[in-house]
């Protein structure tokens, strides 16, 4: 099972707790109207990380991209039994727990196993599925490897931070264990013989093997506690009434063996139709959506980032009384802070941290975070640009009776912007590329879409090549357009 407990997640969880003390996070007063609340709301929001077939993955359903898989089936059944509508929110596995705690989602069904550590923070239902582990190898090596103990002197791969990764580390001897974040990357490494085997969950292993004739699966023989091999649904801490109700559904699923009988075959069907046509052209819609969101994020962030940048630059240049000094100090601190922290953390902070107080959609959060980030950089360019304008320009304008503000607006800023236009253009192009960071909170921009296509088609390289070309086309076009305007401005 996936059991990532990355440092980031730990940090964010701590942050959420801290903020929670001061804020009014929904999970504290959730007490036990949890069931009533969901039923009143009429919608159950399920969080999942759709890069994990056959549990959950992206597929093209009636020409549209949708999240499918056995977990989705379970989510549908849970919602149906509660008499509410199901809404699915995709995000990276790392983000799921925080999203649940901050009220972005109501439950997690994402092949999550109910470990004691997790139990401290969320409430789990009974387990709905018990899997196991296998090791995927190249078919040509069949016979050479029997189980985990056959890899002495070789290299095993596993998804970083997962249960199988830890097991591979602890339960093998003389074997190098290499971690990667994505399953499709691992398979790719296996096929290019950088790895000798990849440990993964049984259903996943079977999905890969049945879709790729060059692969085979062998038993892992890891010894595992049952909590590490089974999946359960997670709810916010203290949702006893809701958990009790859902447990009835889970029990029924188990009693009737619905997972094996209905849900896995249904998921497999998508996997099959999915692999019929794995050409990149078949996925043009997915890539188009990616481009669309990448551009939306970039353009919005450039726009707001520019406004924030101008305001910050002016604040940093403020001179005079106490209030202005304070303003300057705040702006300086802000710029330093933003430039001194990774954009990725800022994105997560806005989505989850601010999420405690206002419920912002992922796209909005992404745009806010990137605008705030870009604003700090733009501010520095603009400040440099303003300083590069000859002081004589200001004096001439002031001597004509123009106020400080009018001088800035009509005389200094236009010239400053002209001077820094190339730097601003660079920032725009950088943003086209950097906007990819919001993929971690589930915004369907290019990187996110390419990951979907990769896990969809089991093709590791082709989608990467496609988005590389697409990014280049975007940045190249943008830089041509910017050059055109730059030349035009030079004439003026």
């Amino acid at each position: 099972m996936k059991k990532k407990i990355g440092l980031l997640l730990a940090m964010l969880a701590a942050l959420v707790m801290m903020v929670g003390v001061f804020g009014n996070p929904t999970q504290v007063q959730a007490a036990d109207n949890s069931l009533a609340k969901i039923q009143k709301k009429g919608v159950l929001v399920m969080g999942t990380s759709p890069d994990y077939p056959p549990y959950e993955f992206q597929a093209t359903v009636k020409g549209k991209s949708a999240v499918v898989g056995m977990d989705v089936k379970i989510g549908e059944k849970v919602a149906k039994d509660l008499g509410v509508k199901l809404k699915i929110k995709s995000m990276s596995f790392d983000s799921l727990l925080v999203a649940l705690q901050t009220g972005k989602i109501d439950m997690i069904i994402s092949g999550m196993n109910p470990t004691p550590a997790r139990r401290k923070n969320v409430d789990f239902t009974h387990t709905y599925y018990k899997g196991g582990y296998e090791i995927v190898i190249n078919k040509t090596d069949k016979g050479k490897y029997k189980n985990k103990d056959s890899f002495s002197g070789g290299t095993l791969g596993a998804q970083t931070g997962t249960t199988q990764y830890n097991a591979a580390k602890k339960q093998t001897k003389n074997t190098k264990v290499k971690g990667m974040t994505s399953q499709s990357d691992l398979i790719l490494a296996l096929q290019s013989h950088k790895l000798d085997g990849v440990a993964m969950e049984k259903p996943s292993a079977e999905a890969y093997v049945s879709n790729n004739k060059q692969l085979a699966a062998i038993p892992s023989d890891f010894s595992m506690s049952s909590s590490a091999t089974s999946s359960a649904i997670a709810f916010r801490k203290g949702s006893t009434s809701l958990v009790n109700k859902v447990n009835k559904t889970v029990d029924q699923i188990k009693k009737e063996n619905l997972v094996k009988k209905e849900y896995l075959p249904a998921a497999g069907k998508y996997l099959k139709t999915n692999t019929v046509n794995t050409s990149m052209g078949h996925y043009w819609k997915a890539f188009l959506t990616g481009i669309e969101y990448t551009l939306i994020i970039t353009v919005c962030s450039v726009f707001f980032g520019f406004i924030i940048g101008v305001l910050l630059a002016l604040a940093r240049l403020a001179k005079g009384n106490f209030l202005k000094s304070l303003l300057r100090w705040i702006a300086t601190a802000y710029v330093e802070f933003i430039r001194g922290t990774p954009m990725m953390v800022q994105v997560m902070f806005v989505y989850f941290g601010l999420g405690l107080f206002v419920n912002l959609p992922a796209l909005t959060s992404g745009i806010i975070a990137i605008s705030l980030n870009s604003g700090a950089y733009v501010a520095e360019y603009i400040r440099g640009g303003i300083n590069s304008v000859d002081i004589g320009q200001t004096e001439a304008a002031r001597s004509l009776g123009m106020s400080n503000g009018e001088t800035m607006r009509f005389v200094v800023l236009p010239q400053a912007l002209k001077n820094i236009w190339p730097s601003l253009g660079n920032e725009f192009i950088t943003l086209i590329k950097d906007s990819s960071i919001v993929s971690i909170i589930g915004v369907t921009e290019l990187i996110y879409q390419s990951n979907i296509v990769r896990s969809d088609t089991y093709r590791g390289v082709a989608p990467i090549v496609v988005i590389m070309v697409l990014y280049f086309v975007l940045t190249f076009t943008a830089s041509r357009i910017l050059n055109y305007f730059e030349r035009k401005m030079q004439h003026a």
Partner: protein
Amino acid sequence: MPKPVIEVEKLAKSFGDNAVLKDITEQVNPGQVIVVIGPSGGGKSTFLRCLNLLETPTSGKVAFEGHDLTTMDTKSVNSLREKMGMVFQGFNLFPNMTVLENIKLAPMKVKHADDASATKQAHELLQRVGLDDHADAFPDSLSGGQAQRVAIARALAMNPEVMLFDEPTSALDPEMVGEVLNVMQELAKDGMTMVVVTHEMGFAKSVGDRIWFMADGYIQENSTPEKFFANPETDRAKDFLSKILM
């Protein structure tokens, strides 16, 4: 005696420890052309910039038409600056605007003149400085003499009551000095009150009403051009004149 346009009282200005202006008390009457001369670094520019508060005096009073600028709020200072046009050694035209736009900017943004009347006025001013055919040119295509005449037109567009000139011809090639001085002479003839910092002694003699000789932070001599150039009183002035008249 008419009421003075500018009154300066016990004006002092220091930059840190550097006392540039020490104790200056003078006045400018309507229609007068004051020529400020003196050795380099003597504080002439600083003095001129204190008159329209581009530089804030350390102490003393600068009054325009009886209003003390040093105690005024920023807004009133801004509006009094309109009445004091200033021309700089380096022209300081706005390079991103045409000649016409340079002239129209302040009337439109500060006085909220409408475009048509601002354009009309700008053309009249350009005719006055002999450059109407350059209305649509950008500053970097002008010669120094032309640029400075545009700068004068730009300052005049606010209908100032006083014009301040800080070495308007020092940055010009010699053959262009004349065209700028001519414009200034015309202005003086039309009755404009002017304070001119310059090294053009010919202009000082023929156009100036008073010569203020400035050195070491003081106005050392205040007299008529005839008297100053024929019979300077202080050794400082004699020394200065002997050097520039060589």
